[in-house]
């Protein structure tokens, strides 16, 4: 809730009397919520704040004047003058009765139940239950437990039929794969025969289950709840950066629970994020520094790398050094490496992306939307890859906006995706041609006329609705260059009120770009030119001219003009769209230095391997796709002798004669906040104390900051895991920093009106705005025998998080080529048949499937696990990729 919303809420309230205390509430709010907000806890099992009430468990029965019997508080909207009692003898008898009934068939196998110790049924029985049972018959029996998916097991004996899981699957995830079957005392939750609960969001049902009926395979029997230590953190499995409560037992990560961050994930996580913690403890982690394959000590490794960098800088001035990667780590790591590269080595050949995203000037220079803006948008324009596969919780948020809030979806996608069925205005765009379609749409949205009926209809709907247009802009496919997406961005940026969410996938890619790991940019959304004086003062030097992006760096490596390549957690052979180019670059470049936790094809022959820490072992901050900076929680000490990336950068800088004078990660955050214009007004302390983080640029979003309770430490230990876990369960102190000052905010948080005073580096610089000039390169016509390729990403991919997490590794499905039925028929290929696909670059064999929703002339290659190289088919220089598909019969 922002400060601007509060007065509107205060205008219309009703008076409700609960247990003799009169409180104010919004009309229509549910009684159970009103009571909870005012400190009266009405016991419940089925009700969940983020789902529609169902009134099943009957635990929240209350007495209300004028209503006969005992209405459930979870289905009762409050109205003015309502008088409710939650503590009468009748209510207590009803609570006793419901609990006794819930327990007659419950197995009470608490000692071996994962939920034991944090179980709502246990807790509610203790607080509200009868304490004895009069049931002497045989309890109901089911086979226990049964696997309803690869990740979730169901014990139907423990189930109390609250419908939280079934409602989540249906209402929130849109995967109605579990349902009640049978009736009466045999009512049970079940998946359908031969159809597992294979939802990307299945872990959420484990979290919200009020008993131990649903358990997660990765966590089963791993810990007792009272042994868990918890820290609040952001998940970095993708760029949404959902808030989570990370838990460990005996210095091992064992569980990640979703935290209900209202502006971001609203309590939900995807399964990749939830269970991906396993990769931190993977056996295959590289934990010792090596030089030419031999294990060495850190000083030896750092000395050698520093010497190599120093020699290269001395010979060629630094521009023959390049740094690729950094999207995986924290803002602090990105900043330290940006400072090392640009301020110490003097190279601007730095890119956190691997040619699979969007140009940095587009990402940093477009008008930004926040995720919450989706809910209030006039329309959402989808011009990205499959959000369900790439940014799953953003998918949930868009889905909610469309399904629950009725926001129109305008789709510029070339391939079917997870939101296709909710799209109200499909604009049938061919691969690579979204620029032209967006230009037409933009013209219509600006009030122009269009011959295209679908575009005209979309524009008409938008014209009738209040709110802004939110464009979800990504790179729909690595088989096409970024230009078509840039053209679309340029066109839509010209629509008044249009704002953008950049749907780049990698965990902290936005944070890395904002922190300076982009060619032509300095930390804090300023160009080299604009920030030169400021950063020269802060760092001592700044590169003269803008450097190369990932494609340029790889071409320069291949051409022999870049001699030293630092791979900052990057694996260009796997991730750069053109494997042949990446391969040539790595074969040709003189020295590769890898900063990574795992060996990969790309870093196997590195001269030096510097093992770094991973998520869960690091603190610091990260920045999500809306520019929200939140804190990472360090929960376990690093494996082996791995170091934080930022510390490796600082150590190297020291050896190169530049003392960064940074001892703690908070000092890095503070330096970043002090020098980076977009961070002005922030600090490590502010990010720590802001409940929902801080949105960049801080100066524009200071009024939205909600401080945690003063003196409250990070952590969520006092919130039960099955309830929506709040970042701070208590009401916020205030809605703005200015109010906080009068409210007794901690002294270390700067509340100065002009944050420039806090910076030793001069007045704020105007932040970079993209000029929205579209590239003019056009898409060549497709010949009639070829299919134009779309490469779609899969959630369970070949990346390290999935491949090094035992629970996730097996979930990747086989690659498949999806075509329109008409094309399959024309090719003479049947469903499931293996076909040969050939591009100008290479060929491969893959199973073909005719899929409804794929446009004729398009071939969608769904890649997943490592091993199948869609990148072997792609020439990075070509704007689109065409395929010949041949039946092999």
């Amino acid at each position, binding site marked *: 809730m922002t400060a601007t919303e509060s007065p509107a809420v205060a205008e219309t309230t009703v008076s409700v009397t609960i247990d003799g205390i009169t409180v104010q509430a919004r009309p229509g709010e549910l009684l159970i919520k009103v009571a909870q907000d005012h400190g009266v806890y009405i016991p419940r099992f089925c009700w969940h704040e983020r789902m529609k009430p169902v009134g099943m468990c009957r635990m929240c029965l209350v007495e209300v004047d004028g209503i006969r019997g005992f209405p459930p508080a979870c289905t009762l909207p409050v109205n003015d003058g309502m008088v409710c009692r939650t503590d009468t003898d*009748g209510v207590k008898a009803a609570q006793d009765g419901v609990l006794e009934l819930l327990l007659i068939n419950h197995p009470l196998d608490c000692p071996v139940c994962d939920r034991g110790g944090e179980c709502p049924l246990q807790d509610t029985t203790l607080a509200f239950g009868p304490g004895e049972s009069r049931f002497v018959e045989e309890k109901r029996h089911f086979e226990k437990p049964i696997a309803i998916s690869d990740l979730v097991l169901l014990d139907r004996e423990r189930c109390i039929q609250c419908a939280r899981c079934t409602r989540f699957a249906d209402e929130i995830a849109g995967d109605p794969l579990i349902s009640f079957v049978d009736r009466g005392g045999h009512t049970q939750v079940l998946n359908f025969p031969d159809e597992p609960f294979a939802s990307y969001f299945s872990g959420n049902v484990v979290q919200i289950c009020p008993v131990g009926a649903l358990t997660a395979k990765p966590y089963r029997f791993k810990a007792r709840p009272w042994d868990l230590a918890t820290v609040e953190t952001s998940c970095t499995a993708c760029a949404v950066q959902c808030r989570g409560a990370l838990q460990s037992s005996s210095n091992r990560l064992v569980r990640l629970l979703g935290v209900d961050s209202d502006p971001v994930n609203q309590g939900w996580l995807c399964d990749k994020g939830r269970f991906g913690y396993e990769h931190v403890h993977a056996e295959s982690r590289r934990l010792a520094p090596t030089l030419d394959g031999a294990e060495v000590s850190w000083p030896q490794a750092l000395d050698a790398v520093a010497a190599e960098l120093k020699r290269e800088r001395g010979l060629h001035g630094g521009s023959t050094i390049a740094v690729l990667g950094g999207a995986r780590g924290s803002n602090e790591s990105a900043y330290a490496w940006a400072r090392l590269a640009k301020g110490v080595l003097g190279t601007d050949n730095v890119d956190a992306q691997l040619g699979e995203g969007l140009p940095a000037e587009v990402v940093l220079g477009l008008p930004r939307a926040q995720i919450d803006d989706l809910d209030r948008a006039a329309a959402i324009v989808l011009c990205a890859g499959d959000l369900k596969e790439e940014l799953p919780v953003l998918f949930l948020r868009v889905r909610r906006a469309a399904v629950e809030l009725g926001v129109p979806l305008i789709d510029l996608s070339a391939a079917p995706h997870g939101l296709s069925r909710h799209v109200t205005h499909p604009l049938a765009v061919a691969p690579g041609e979204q620029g032209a379609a967006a230009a037409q749409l933009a013209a219509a949205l600006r009030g122009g006329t269009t011959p295209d009926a679908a575009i005209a209809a979309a524009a008409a709907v938008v014209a009738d609705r209040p709110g802004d247009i939110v464009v979800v802009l990504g790179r729909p496919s690595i088989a096409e260059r970024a230009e078509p997406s840039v053209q679309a961005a340029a066109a839509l940026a010209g629509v008044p009120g249009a704002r953008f969410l950049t749907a780049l996938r990698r965990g902290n890619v936005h944070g890395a770009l904002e922190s300076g790991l982009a060619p032509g940019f300095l930390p804090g959304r300023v160009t080299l030119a604009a920030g030169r004086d400021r950063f020269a003062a802060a760092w001592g030097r700044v590169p003269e001219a803008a450097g190369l992006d990932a494609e340029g760096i790889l071409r320069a490596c291949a051409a022999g003009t870049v001699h030293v390549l630092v791979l900052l957690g990057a694996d260009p052979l796997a991730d750069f769209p053109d494997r042949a180019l990446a391969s040539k670059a790595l074969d040709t470049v003189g020295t590769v230095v890898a900063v990574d936790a795992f060996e990969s094809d790309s870093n196997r022959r590195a001269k030096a391997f510097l093992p770094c820490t991973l998520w869960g072992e690091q603190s610091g901050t990260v920045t999500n796709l809306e520019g929200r900076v939140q804190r990472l929680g360090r929960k376990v000490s690093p494996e082996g002798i791995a170091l934080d990336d930022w510390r490796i950068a600082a150590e190297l800088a020291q050896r190169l004669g530049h003392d960064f004078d940074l001892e703690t990660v908070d000092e890095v955050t503070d330096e970043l906040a002090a020098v980076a214009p977009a961070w002005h007004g922030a600090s490590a302390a502010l990010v720590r104390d802001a409940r929902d983080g801080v949105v960049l640029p801080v100066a524009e979003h200071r009024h939205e900051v909600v401080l945690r309770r003063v003196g409250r430490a990070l952590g969520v230990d006092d919130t039960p895991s099955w309830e929506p876990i709040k970042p701070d369960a208590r009401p916020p102190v205030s809605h703005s920093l200015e109010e906080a000052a009068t409210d007794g905010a901690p002294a270390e948080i700067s509340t100065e009106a002009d944050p420039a005073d806090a910076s030793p580096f001069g007045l704020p610089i105007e932040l970079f705005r993209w000029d929205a000039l579209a590239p003019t390169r056009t898409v060549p016509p497709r010949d009639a025998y070829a299919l134009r390729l779309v490469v779609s990403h899969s959630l369970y991919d070949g990346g390290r998080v999935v491949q090094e997490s035992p629970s996730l590794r097996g979930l990747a499905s086989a690659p498949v080529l999806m075509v329109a039925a008409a094309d399959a028929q024309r090719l003479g290929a049947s469903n499931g048949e293996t076909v040969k696909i050939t591009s100008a670059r290479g060929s491969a064999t893959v199973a073909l499937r005719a899929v409804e929703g794929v446009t004729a002339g398009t071939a969608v290659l769904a890649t997943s696990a490592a091993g199948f190289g869609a990148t072997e088919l792609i020439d990075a220089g070509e704007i689109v990729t065409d395929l010949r598909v041949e039946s092999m019969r």
Partner: protein
Amino acid sequence: MSGASGKAVRETRIVTRRLHDVADAWRYDVARADGAYDTWAEVLRRADRADVLGQVKTSGLRGRGGANFPTAIKWESLPDVSPRYLVINGDEGEPSTFKDREIIEKDPHALIEGVCIEAYACNINTAFIYLRGEFALGHDRVVQAVADARANGWVGRDIQGSGFDLDIIVHRGAGAYICGEESALIESLEGKRGMPRIKPPLPIHSGVYSKPTVVNNVETVATITHIMKMGGDEYAKLGVGRSTGTRIAAISGHVQRPGIYEIEFGMTFREILFELCGGIRDGRALKFFLPGGASFQWLVNTDEHLDQVYDIDDISAKLGTTLGSGAIMVYDETTDPLLVAWRLAKFYAHESCGKCTPCREGTGWIEKVLYRMSHGQGRPDDMDLLLAASASISPDVLRAPFTQTTICPLGPSPVSAVASLHKYFRAEVDAACAHANGRARTTIQVHAS
């Protein structure tokens, strides 16, 4: 012949006349020859919606499904939103209730004509007839009847040139008693698992596909035609008090002549059971009877109960039970009331949809306790245990109409049997459970309180 009630002790066949008197009335030609659709044609000719509502209002017709809600008032509360739907509840599944089935199987055109008139009165263009899944014959006949009515221009587009359109869709249930509850029926109709919805909103405001929906029982709808034919005034002259007209009673059990009887409200149970139905069979004595189907409290062989007038409001006020779905189950002196209670509880435990905890778990528990009590294994405090367990479903166990902790009245239904055992057969039950197994306690102390 006039009985103690002052009412003629005979059937008053209005709704059931054709199905009794006309062979093969389910055939279109036969029914048409007997005047089927004449009233519908007349209603269309007069083209006066307000008149239909007025006649039904004047008639005092109340819903025949068991809730006795005044039909005209339901129609009047229908919001002016389009589309709106009419749903005919033909999911007659209550044990011992078989009156709608007679109409469905033997006189489906009476049902369809009523649907047409009601839909016209309420200006509804789509009606659903939801039939109990087990009604195989009834389903075939209603489907055929709708097809015939459509072929002959009584249903469909621009009916008889009136400009009024009506589609009738016949839907067969899948065998769940709960789908007789109107909101569960609507869920089922929408293709979902049949479970009652939270109310409010009531179906009249948000029913099928969240649109305003009138749900009426088969007998109610079939009566409308006759009200239009004879006039609301005339219909209202029948009956007693606010219980106007006739009611089809489905009488089963130990009487000489079980079956359906269309009786004018106002007769006494003594007249119904001993004169209309010929008394208890095999010369035995009456022990108890269920006056309103399986879900409500029982009555026994006393003058007070037998002289109770068949009147919706009077029986509720005086004896704390209702006429329910119109079924009367009669048991003679050889019957073990515990067995009857157990069998009823078993039905409800089996048919509980599983939504509300008290019903899902409680009906099963009551069934288990009643099983052991009725099978020689009862424990001395079992009756008290039953009352205590029942209180979790229906807090004032003995009170009628019952209060409930559940969404719908299915859960409290077996509590009626428990309450009846306690009220009328306590000594017999205690005697049956006095010695079994010699175990005195049924309570397991979990911890000292």
